[in-house]
């Protein structure tokens, strides 16, 4: 039995989804809690508390509510929650937690609604609750017939939920959850161009701003001549933005249309001072190399891996729209954290949170970048000046050159091998930078906790040397695990090659007997027909990861001579796969990220500036490079795990091992100098 007051305390996974059990409304609707409500007409509305950045949380919420209320996903109207942590709990899309943390409260909310409706019907019919079932938006009884929800909403709303036992639909009775046929609920809007992303927010009377940004890292405006810019048609204002309160800093041009703002930015004459005009990422890499101790702690096999800067480059460039009024602020933003953004803005502007409204727009990708508020701060500064809504738009080059990059890193791995060729002692020394967007990430223990998930039974140490970051760094899908697992798995592969050991057998031998990874490794080896020799000219790579409450093993098959990735097999144990198509999609996405970063994409800095400016030089994978991707979902009884970031680290390691062929992997991307 779930009491009114504690309805949503148990959100699982250590989450504090502090749901306020909203009292049943007197207006005739049924609102078992903040997540689900039914109106008098029986229409079901579900609130999606976290943004959808492409991870599919809206679809999973619709499936969960439809499952518990015995309707189709299309019968559930979705409302994207504005930023409000008091009502919706933590709203940040991070650490692959969206579905993990929402599944219990959302399913409980919908099941509560169902149980109240069933109780109302049973009471009206004077039959036992246990004789009633729900189907097609109605309560059914073998003799009494059918009562549509709309006929029960008032009676259900009059019940005290504390008196009604609530049971979730057990997995063996699921019609929708766990089924492959369910697709993304927003697919029709997406394929017809109707989905409104942050960039599509144009409140009436809105203006557009673009910002002249520092031509080298850390520069600030020295002199500004805006005479020519202000003389151009459509230009409304020019203002200087000061970091960090107003974003990353620069000179904003506000105009009536995007094109007018872009032209006026070109007409600005700005000189810059300060910063690091001679910075070079090759030097940074040398500095990291030099930051490792002269000698490794183990005198044995040794290998060094060098990892580049990476940009997020979501397809929708950074943007935000703000309207600052005397009585408050409204934000329209593609953000990963509407609740955190609202709290931060209220604090920064010195106003109560109730006067800050953050409308959560769809995000055209995020990958960790949209956890940061800098575009929003720019829009607030511009709107405060004009008093009108202002959208700040970043061009692709603005986005690529003013990102919060994944840090560079240098990894030295060493191992002592036993007589059977297996490692008996290991050391992994890392030199890297913190995440400047979250200062606590200067702590080596946190970096180690994020990156190090070495699952094999080999005693040894991981030591992290943290050097000051020379530019903005931030959360990039999988955070430090991408670099650490790449180094650890490729070193293990090299040990296997040196010792003449089968790569899957080597890993099976080294995994602890109770590891969840055994099952996924066996499953993926079976799918990839591992025991058969690879086709002539092809090589294979394998890697594992247990993280985010889930486990995965990946096998990649490549033709190294043509640098072509042929196939990737993955087997995942996510506990419960609520939306299998979405599970596969996340793995496929990580595989493409992995291929892209092994074969071409890196950020370099020359003369103080990021050299790459668009998809011509930040070489993301294209359709023609795409391998076949085969994802097996391994049945499991463990609790629901996370998935959005799980597959990148093992995929990038396995793909690198496969594409390297007989050569050792030394870093990424292949074929060019790192840095």
């Amino acid at each position, binding site marked *: 039995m779930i009491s009114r007051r504690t309805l949503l305390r148990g959100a699982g996974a250590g989450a504090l989804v502090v749901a306020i059990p909203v009292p049943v409304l007197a207006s005739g609707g049924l609102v078992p809690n903040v997540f689900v409500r039914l109106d008098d007409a029986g229409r079901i509305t579900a609130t999606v508390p976290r943004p959808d950045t*492409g991870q599919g949380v809206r679809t999973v919420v619709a499936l969960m509510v439809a499952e518990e209320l015995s309707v189709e996903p299309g019968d559930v109207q979705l409302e994207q929650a504005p930023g409000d942590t008091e009502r919706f709990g933590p709203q940040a899309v991070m650490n692959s937690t969206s579905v993990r943390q929402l599944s219990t409260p959302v399913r409980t909310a919908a099941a509560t609604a169902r149980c109240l409706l069933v109780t109302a019907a049973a009471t009206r019919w004077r039959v036992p609750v246990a004789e009633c079932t729900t189907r097609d938006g109605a309560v059914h009884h073998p003799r009494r017939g059918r009562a549509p929800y709309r006929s029960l909403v008032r009676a259900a709303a009059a019940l005290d939920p504390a008196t009604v036992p609530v049971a979730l639909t057990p997995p063996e009775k699921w019609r929708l959850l766990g089924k492959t046929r369910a697709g993304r609920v927003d697919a029709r809007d997406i*394929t*017809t161009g109707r989905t409104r992303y942050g960039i599509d927010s144009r409140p009436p009377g809105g203006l557009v701003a673009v910002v002249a940004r520092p031509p080298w890292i850390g520069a600030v405006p020295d002199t500004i001549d805006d005479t020519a810019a202000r003389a151009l048609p459509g230009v409304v204002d020019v203002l200087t933005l000061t970091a960090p309160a107003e974003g990353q800093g620069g000179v904003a041009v506000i105009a009536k249309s995007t094109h007018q703002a872009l032209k006026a930015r070109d007409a600005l004459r700005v000189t810059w001072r300060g910063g690091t005009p001679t910075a070079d990422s090759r030097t940074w890499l040398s500095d990291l190399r030099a930051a490792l101790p002269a000698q490794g702690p183990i005198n044995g096999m040794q290998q060094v891996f060098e990892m580049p800067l990476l940009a997020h480059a979501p397809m929708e460039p950074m943007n935000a729209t703000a309207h600052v009024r005397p009585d408050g602020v409204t934000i329209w933003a593609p953000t990963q954290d509407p609740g955190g953004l609202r709290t931060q803005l209220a604090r920064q502007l010195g106003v109560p949170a109730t006067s800050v409204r953050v409308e959560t727009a769809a995000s055209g990708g995020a990958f960790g970048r949209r956890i940061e508020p800098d575009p929003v701060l720019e829009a607030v500064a511009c709107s405060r000046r004009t008093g009108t809504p202002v959208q700040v738009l970043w061009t692709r080059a603005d986005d690529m050159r003013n990102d919060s990059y994944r840090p560079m890193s240098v990894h030295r791995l060493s191992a002592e091998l036993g007589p059977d060729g297996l490692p008996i002692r290991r050391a992994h020394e890392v030199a890297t930078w913190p995440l400047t967007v979250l200062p606590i990430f200067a702590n080596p223990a946190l970096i180690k906790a994020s990156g190090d998930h070495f699952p094999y039974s080999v005693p040894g140490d991981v030591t992290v040397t943290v050097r000051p970051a020379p530019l903005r760094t931030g959360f990039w899908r999988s955070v430090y695990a991408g670099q650490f697992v790449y180094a650890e798995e490729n070193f293990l592969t090299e040990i296997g090659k040196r010792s003449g050991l089968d790569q899957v057998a080597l890993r099976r031998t080294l995994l602890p007997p109770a590891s969840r990874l055994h099952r996924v490794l066996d499953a993926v080896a079976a799918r990839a027909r591992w025991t058969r020799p690879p086709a002539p000219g092809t090589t294979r790579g394998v890697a594992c990861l247990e993280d985010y409450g889930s486990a995965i093993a990946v096998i990649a098959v490549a033709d190294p001579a043509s640098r072509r990735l042929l196939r990737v097999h993955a087997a995942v144990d996510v506990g419960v796969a609520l939306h299998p198509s979405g599970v596969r999609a996340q793995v496929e996405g990580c595989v493409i990220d992995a291929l892209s970063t092994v074969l071409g994409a890196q950020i370099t800095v020359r003369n103080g500036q990021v050299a790459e400016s668009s998809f011509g030089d930040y070489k993301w994978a294209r359709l023609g490079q795409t391998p076949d991707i085969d994802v097996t979902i391994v049945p499991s009884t463990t609790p629901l795990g996370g998935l959005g970031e799980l597959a990148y680290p093992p995929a990038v390691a396995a793909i690198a091992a496969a594409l390297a062929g007989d050569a050792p992997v030394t870093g990424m991307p292949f074929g060019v100098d790192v840095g």
Partner: protein
Amino acid sequence: MARYLLRVNGERHEVDVDGDTPLLWVLRDELGLTGVKYGCGVGLCGACTSHVDGQAARPCVRTAADSAKTRITTVEGLSRDGNHPVQRAWRELDVAQCGYCQPGQVMAAAALLARDPDPDDAAIEEALRDNVCRCGTYPRIRDAVRRASRIMREER
């Protein structure tokens, strides 16, 4: 500023913009056709892909002046009911993740199938080579183009 008469999705629109305004911003800012996505502004990512006189084109690298005598179709005008075979195939195979690049992918695929109803893999890869998807939906895009081709064949 000058007036240009544009034919977009079967309707005539008069817009008053500078002649060098990219068609992308005319469609988005002046006509409110926000299904045409801004991704790079320099013809590299394909997010804005639309049809100009029936061919796949990049509105970000064409100007309002260039477009005056052309017939423009954006994703909003690809089909009356959202049920073009490409749109249906995209939904059947659950292609989209964030969805931002998908209007451009859909329009590139529709243009390909209009001129080559049964493209082989090489033709698909060539036609969609410069449509970037950052979520990594390429395997499903490839399958969905094949599926759309089959739907069109079955319904011919």
